[in-house]
């Protein structure tokens, strides 16, 4: 399905998120002989939700291969191969599983360039997938962008669309000289996007996903899509013009862009896929306040996961995440106050908006 609010802008074709991933993985293997992909299940028929399907057959088991269940060891292997001249791509089908590799990612990969005075290059791509809905539960739903971006040395990105993948991955793979963690979102995998050839965008930073003048919405990953849908709703119902900034690069956002937008609108909503405490939302506020405490005309609104481990019962899961209902309400409240009186969308569960998304997966 196409999300109604995402207007096709001079697109040349339709491509799903998984399809964009598969194209960039395929191109990476075709273009760079030193590139390989390893991870649990990369060579099976599901191929990381369709993002590596058929590549093992096409490029051979030496370049696309399954690994034992050893996240730390596997990540160390990738780092070692990288130091000697290969370009490894590793995958974790849930971001939660990358926590087993934290020792290698944080204690080694993040620090090698600095700690060894520039002698080390550790180029590699770690793809991790955030799960959401259908009872993913506490250990299959976490979204660790703030955790990774906290450690100097890691480049962290969150592609929110097929276009973002087409823009970023070719610029990362075999070109970016350091370790990159890309946090992909499971809900996006099966969505179709209209894409145009990737030529004009600066990939590893933030960009304006929708121009507006009344309120700034800074969003990450799937929340960019939610914000775009909400922006269309508030424009249709209340004539509100919301500007959406896709933070896109969590470690290297364009804070000038964010500050300029907030200077223009004076109103801010932050919509993140993770917890608010010590997270992206907190960092956005820190960046703005340090620049100029007068940028905001009123207190901002923050949308993120409830401060609890993720529950599985649908009645709880639906209110655990910010829905279209809350996103629209946040934008309306920023512009018109909490007594805005405008009817909110009844959609309380994101899966209702993403009809093709069904478990099990």
């Amino acid at each position: 399905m196409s999300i109604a609010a995402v207007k096709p802008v001079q697109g040349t074709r339709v491509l799903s998120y998984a399809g964009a991933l598969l194209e960039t993985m395929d191109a990476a293997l075709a273009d760079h002989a030193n590139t390989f992909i390893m991870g649990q299940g990369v060579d099976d028929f599901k191929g990381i939700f369709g993002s590596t399907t058929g590549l093992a057959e096409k490029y051979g088991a030496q370049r696309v291969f399954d690994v034992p269940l050893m996240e730390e060891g596997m990540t160390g292997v990738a780092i070692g191969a990288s130091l000697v001249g290969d370009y490894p791509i590793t995958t974790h089908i849930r971001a939660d599983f990358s926590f087993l590799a934290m020792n290698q990612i944080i204690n080694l990969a993040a620090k090698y360039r600095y700690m060894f005075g520039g002698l080390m290059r550790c180029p590699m791509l770690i793809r991790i997938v955030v799960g959401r809905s259908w009872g993913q539960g506490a250990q299959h739903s976490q979204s660790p962008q703030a955790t990774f971006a906290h450690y100097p040395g890691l480049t962290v990105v969150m592609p929110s669309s097929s276009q973002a993948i087409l823009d970023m991955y070719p610029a990362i793979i075999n070109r970016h000289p350091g370790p990159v963690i890309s946090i992909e979102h499971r809900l996006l995998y099966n969505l179709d996007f209209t894409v145009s050839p990737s030529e004009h965008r600066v990939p590893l930073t933030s960009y304006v996903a929708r121009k507006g003048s009344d309120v700034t919405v800074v969003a990450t990953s799937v929340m960019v899509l939610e914000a775009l849908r909400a922006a269309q709703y508030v424009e249709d119902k209340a004539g509100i013009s919301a500007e959406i900034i896709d933070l896109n690069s969590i470690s290297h956002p364009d804070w000038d862009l964010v500050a300029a937008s907030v200077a223009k609108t004076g109103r801010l909503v932050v919509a993140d896929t993770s917890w608010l405490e010590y997270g992206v939302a907190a960092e956005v506020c820190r960046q703005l306040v340090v620049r100029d405490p007068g940028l905001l005309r009123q207190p901002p609104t923050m949308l993120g996961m409830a401060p609890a481990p993720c529950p599985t019962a649908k009645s709880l899961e639906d209110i655990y995440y910010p829905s279209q209902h809350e996103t629209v309400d946040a934008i309306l409240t920023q512009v018109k106050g909490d007594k805005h009186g405008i009817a909110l969308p009844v959609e309380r569960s994101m899966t209702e908006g993403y009809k093709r998304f069904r478990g099990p997966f």
Partner: protein
Amino acid sequence: MSFAREPLPKATAIQLFKSLYLARRSEEYIVKHYPENLMRTPMHMSMGQEFVCVGVCSALEGKADVFASYRSHAAFLAQTHDTDRFFSELYGRTSGTGEGKGGSMHLAAPDQGHILSSGVVATQIPVAVGAAFANRQLKTGRTAVVFFGDGAADAGVFWESINAAALFKLPVIFVCEDNGYAVDTPREARQMSKSLSDVVKPFGADTYEDDSGDVESVYSLAKEAVAKAHRDRRPAFLNIKCCRYLEHVGIGTDWNWGYRDQATVEREWIDRDALKVQRKRLAEHQVSEAAIAAIEDEIDKAIQASVKRASQAPIPTPDRLHAGVFYEKA
């Protein structure tokens, strides 16, 4: 067990002696000058167990990618003989291996085959497996060697790495510098198995035990293990018994800790110190006392010169604090 089946050639014996002497004397310099507080970095001294790294690195004749632990001095010097960058790093100078940002635990000279040393126990082990993987794919002909202590074999990632190397048919040389202690906790208090090798073997690695304390034995063993690993496309696990003469971290002895007996250590290890033994061997090879003294004098002078260069090298300027965190132009 000893692997020196026949005496090594005189030239090899001299080379091994030089390498041992270089590591020992460099650390003796550190012991003497550490109290001046100009080398501000925690020292995990190799003294006593240098023969392990010297034996293995010498056997590889430079065609190696070496990974080491925070007990890094002997591995670094055995592989590189580069006292200039070594002391510069310890003194926190820009001419050091990490331009003064790494310190004793993080020495690296990838251009000389010492890829890195790592400060968190066992973290370097899977990295060596990755290097072996890339070496095969890129056909470099180099051998990945990783040094670690018996404490690292407590860690899960050690077993992950042994399994991965065997599974991927990689000729990784795992060298356990088995000094018997994780800080002051003996192996018996940490591991149920009588012998690490017995547990490693069924993973699909060739295992070798050596308790000779002798650099020539280790050298011969490493030669054999490396050849077989490449021939049979299997990892090798070398368990080399050794003795750390000094405390876990720092330049002092630790007899007062009470976890090991000084007289026993002296009788079992220090009395047959590998450097002393190798020096005697040179005499057996008809190298005169004067010639040995000349070798020693040359190395001592080289160390002094390196220390002098290090102490005169620039200290990092404040702009280096933020440089090189990411991959911007630094």
